[in-house]
C-alpha cells in the first residue's frame, strides 16, 4: 500500500466519523479506564488482589495490541472503603480523567454511593467484588431508562441461598445460629440469610450481633451455645470472624462455621490459625489449576507479583475477568462512548473465556449479573488455604460452570 492510498483511507475514515465528532483519537491514544477500590484499610487484601488481577489483564491486553488498536490506561484511585472518598473519586474520574468505564468497588456502601455519578454521566461501571444484592438493581428500569451498573461477583442473595442450602440440605444441620456484624454488610446479609433459611423451613435458633472491632465474643457465643445451635452461619469480615473462631476455642467448644465469602479473607485465615480450619464459604474461584485458563492465570499472577498464595483469589479472578469483559464490549462497540459500551455489554456476541467462568452473553438489558447460583462452589479453610469443600464439584466438566439462562 502506498502512502497516497493510506492517507486517502485515513481521510475517508475521518469523514465517516461525521462532522459532529471532535478531532478523532489518534491510533496510540490510550483508552482511560477508572479503577476504584480500597488499597489501604481493613478491606485492603481484597482491594489489592482485585487491583493486581485487573492490572495483570490490562498488561496482557496491551501486550497483545490493546483494544481497537489503542492501549488501555488504568487510572487507579484508593477509596479507602470510605463512601465520601468513593464519591469524590467517581467525580474526579468522570470529569477530570474522563474515563470510558470504571472497574472496582469492594465495599457495597462505596459502590452504592459512587455509582450514581456514573449512571448520570452514562458511563458503565463493572462491580467486580462488592456483593450487596441491591448494587445492580439501583438503577434498573423503571428507575432509569438504561442501567449502567454491571457486576461480576456473586451477589449476597446467591451467597445466602447457597449457605442455607449447604447447611440445611447438604449437611443436614437443624439448628443454625447466625452471627453477623452490625455494619450494612452484616445486617443486610443476615436478612438475606434468614429469608433463605425460611425458604428451607428452618428458623435460626439465635441471631447475634457484634460491632466491627469487637474483640470479645464470649456473650454472643454463649448465647449460641445455650440456644443449642449445631452450626454457626456468619456474615462479617475477617478480624471479627477470627475472633469468633478463637472465642469458640477459648470456650473449649466448636461448631462448624459456614458463611459468606469473607471467610476466605486472609485476615480470617491468618488470625484464626488452626481454629479457623473447616470454615466454609461460597467461592467463585479457588486458587487451583482446575482449567487451563485458571492454571495460566495463577501462574501469571504468581510470576507478576512474586507471591505463592493470592491474598484474595476471588477478588483477583473477578477483577481480571472484568477487564476482559470490558475489552470485549469496547471492541464490539467499536468506540468508547459510554452508551455504546453499555449496549455492547448487554448484547455481547463474543464468548469471553475468563478465570471464573466462560462468559457467553453474561448480561442482558434486564440482567446485569454475570454470576448465577450454579457458578460458585464451596471452599473450605484447610491449613491456611482455601481448598474445595467438595472436590467432586470441580471434577471433570464440572470445573467450568457457566451461567444458566433464565
Amino acid at each position, binding site marked *: 500500500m502506498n502512502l497516497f492510498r493510506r492517507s486517502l483511507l485515513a481521510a475517508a475514515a475521518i469523514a465517516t466519523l461525521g462532522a459532529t465528532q471532535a478531532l478523532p483519537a489518534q491510533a496510540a491514544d490510550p483508552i482511560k479506564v477508572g479503577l476504584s477500590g480500597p488499597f*489501604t*484499610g*481493613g478491606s*485492603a*487484601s481484597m482491594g489489592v488482589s482485585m487491583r493486581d488481577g485487573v492490572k495483570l489483564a490490562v498488561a496482557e491486553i496491551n501486550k497483545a495490541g490493546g483494544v481497537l488498536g489503542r492501549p488501555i490506561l488504568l487510572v487507579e484511585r484508593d477509596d479507602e472503603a470510605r463512601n465520601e472518598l468513593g464519591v469524590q473519586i467517581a467525580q474526579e474520574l468522570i470529569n477530570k480523567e474522563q474515563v470510558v468505564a470504571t472497574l472496582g468497588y469492594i465495599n457495597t456502601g462505596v459502590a452504592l454511593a459512587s455509582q450514581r455519578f456514573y449512571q448520570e454521566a452514562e458511563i458503565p461501571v463493572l462491580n467486580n467484588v462488592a456483593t450487596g444484592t441491591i448494587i445492580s438493581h439501583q438503577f434498573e428500569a423503571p428507575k432509569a431508562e438504561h442501567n449502567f451498573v454491571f457486576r461480576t461477583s456473586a451477589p449476597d442473595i446467591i451467597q445466602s441461598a447457597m449457605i442455607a442450602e449447604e447447611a440445611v440440605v447438604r449437611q443436614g444441620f437443624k439448628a443454625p445460629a447466625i452471627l453477623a456484624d*452490625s455494619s450494612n454488610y452484616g445486617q443486610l446479609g443476615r436478612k438475606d440469610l434468614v429469608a433463605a433459611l425460611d425458604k428451607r423451613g428452618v428458623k435460626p435458633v439465635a441471631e*447475634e*450481633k*457484634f*460491632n466491627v*472491632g469487637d*474483640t*470479645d465474643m*464470649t*456473650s*454472643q457465643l*454463649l*448465647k449460641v451455645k*445455650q440456644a443449642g445451635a449445631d452450626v454457626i452461619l456468619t456474615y462479617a469480615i*475477617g*478480624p471479627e470472624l*477470627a*475472633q469468633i473462631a478463637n472465642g469458640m*476455642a*477459648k*470456650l*473449649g467448644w466448636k461448631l462448624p462455621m459456614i458463611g459468606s465469602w469473607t471467610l476466605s479473607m*486472609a*485476615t480470617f485465615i*491468618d*488470625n484464626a*490459625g488452626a481454629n479457623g480450619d473447616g470454615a466454609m464459604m461460597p467461592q467463585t474461584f479457588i486458587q487451583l489449576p482446575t482449567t487451563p485458563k485458571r492454571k495460566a492465570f495463577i501462574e501469571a499472577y504468581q510470576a507478576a507479583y512474586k507471591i505463592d498464595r493470592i491474598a484474595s483469589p476471588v477478588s483477583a479472578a473477578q477483577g481480571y475477568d472484568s477487564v476482559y469483559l470490558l475489552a470485549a464490549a469496547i471492541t464490539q462497540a467499536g468506540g468508547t462512548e459510554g452508551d455504546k459500551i453499555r449496549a455492547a455489554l448487554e448484547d455481547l456476541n463474543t464468548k469471553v473465556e475468563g478465570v471464573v467462568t466462560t462468559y457467553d452473553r453474561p448480561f442482558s438489558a434486564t440482567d446485569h449479573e454475570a454470576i448465577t447460583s450454579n457458578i460458585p462452589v464451596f471452599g473450605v479453610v484447610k491449613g491456611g488455604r482455601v481448598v474445595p469443600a467438595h472436590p467432586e464439584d470441580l471434577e471433570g466438566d464440572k470445573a467450568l460452570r457457566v451461567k444458566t439462562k433464565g
Partner: protein
Amino acid sequence: MEILGQLIVSGIAVGMIYGVIAFGYQLTFATSKTLNFGQGEALMLGSLVGWSLVAVTGYLLMLPIVLAFGLLQGAIVERLGVRQAIKTKSEAGWIMATIALGIIFRNLAENIWGRDALKFPSPLPEAPLSFAGINVLPMELAIVVGAIAMMVAVEVFNRRSIYGRAVVATAGDRDAAGLVGVNTSLVITFSYALSSLAAAFAGVLIAPVTLTGATMGGVLGLKGFAVAIIGGLSSGFGVVVGGLILGITENLTGFYLSTGYKDVPGLLLLLLVLSLKPSGLFGKAAIKKV
C-alpha cells in the same frame, strides 16, 4: 451458673484491659490536670512496635524495648502537645493537641504497618484452662496479673522513691511543689512518659488476645476514658474497679439482654455517674479555690 461464671471471668479480662488504659489517663491527670486523648494510639503504637520486635527478640526481651519506646513516645506527646498549653494556662489547647497527635500517630502506623489486623504471637499456650467448667485463656490470666503488677509497681514507685514523691507532691499542689524545689514541668513530662509506658505495656499484653492493628486504639481509648470517668480520674484504685464494672456489665448485657445493646448499659452508667457523682465513684471531689 457456669454461664454466669464464664461471663464474669471474660468480663474481668476485658475490664482489666479498660482499667489499664484508664490508669494511663489517671497518671497524667494527677500531675497536670490534663489528659492524653491519644492514649488509645499510645497503646496501639506499643503493640505494633512489639509486634515488629517479637519475631526477632522473643516476648520477654521485647518488653523492655517497648516500655522504653512508650516512655519516649509519652515524653514527645507532652513536649509537643501539652507543655505550651500548661505554660499559657490554656484550658483546652491540650485537648486538640493530644487528639491531633493521636491522629498523626495512627496515620503513621497505617503507613508503616498497614491497616489490616495482625496476629500477635502468644507467649503462652493458646489452649484454654478450665476451672469448674469455666474456661479462661492463659493470656487472659496474664493480662489480669500483668495489669495489676504494673499498677502496683507505679504506686510503689510513687510512694517510696524520691522521684515518686515529687510526682505525688506535684499532684497534690503543683505551685507548692514548685516552691520547695520540685521541677514540676519535668514531673509532668515524666507522668506523660509513664502513662504512655502503661499504654504500651497494655498494648503488648492484650495483643495476643485482641489482634493488633493501626485502628485498635480508637475503641479501646474511648472505653478506657469512660472507665476513667466512672472510676474517678483521681483514683488509681477506682479505674480498676471502673474497668471491671464496665467489662462485666458489657458481657452480662450481651448475654441476658441482647448482643445488639452490649455497649449501652456501660454508657448509661457513665451518664449516671456523671450526674450523681461527677468526680467518679472513687474520685475525690475537687474543690476549686478562686
